């Protein structure tokens, strides 16, 4: 099981802040993860529609989409940040 966490409009569109998911063995990168999640339902498809703007963090560190996610404890998906 991998813990997924969502923030801002990604969270709102998916309809939850976090969940534990069993990832198929062929989901190896951030890009794979986005495609897999989009197949799970309309709410995911809507939240992750524009893949390029979605930011990914593994174990609370920013990563590129092509980064390996295998073995991650916590993966976060969120929009570009707007703090400060």
């Amino acid at each position: 099981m991998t813990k997924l966490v969502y923030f801002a409009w990604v969270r709102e569109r998916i309809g939850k802040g976090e969940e534990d998911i069993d990832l198929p063995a062929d989901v190896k990168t951030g890009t794979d993860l986005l495609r897999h999640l989009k197949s799970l339902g309309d709410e995911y498809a809507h939240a992750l529609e524009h893949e390029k703007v979605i930011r990914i963090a593994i174990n609370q560190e920013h990563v590129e989409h092509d980064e390996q996610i295998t073995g991650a404890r916590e993966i976060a998906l969120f929009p570009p940040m707007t703090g400060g």
Partner: protein
Amino acid sequence: MAGGVSAPVTVRVQADDFDAAAEAARLTEGRADAGAVVSFVGLCRDEGGELSALELEHYPGMAEAEIGRICRIAIERFSLLGVTAIHRVGKIAPGANIVLVVAAAPHRHAAFDGASFVMDYLKTSAPFWKKEHFADGRDGGWVDAKESDDRAREKWA
């Protein structure tokens, strides 16, 4: 010289307001090698009376870690004597404080650059998101990230 591991980094994410003066004083307390302290306070604008509140969401744990990482890079790069960064979360009213960055250095340009660098990186890489609430009851939705903020960060690369 200045900087290095002994320069204190203080990072907090909190709902409560902060006291900018007290934080600046704490940074230079008991030392007389700081010749310059630059404090940045970011406030909630009312957008010409339209805005009733900003709501700030963050990624607990990662937000603090990311700001801390940025502060330590700033200390190294500008030989700062210390940095304090505090970011508020939750609902924030127009005119109220959102974020504080204080940088201390022996000389003024390092302190200015340090505080400015931390803000430019914080804006684009610390996991916070702003949602607008309008005075007329409309939900303004999530604030879009600005290209100008990305460019401001690239300036330091």
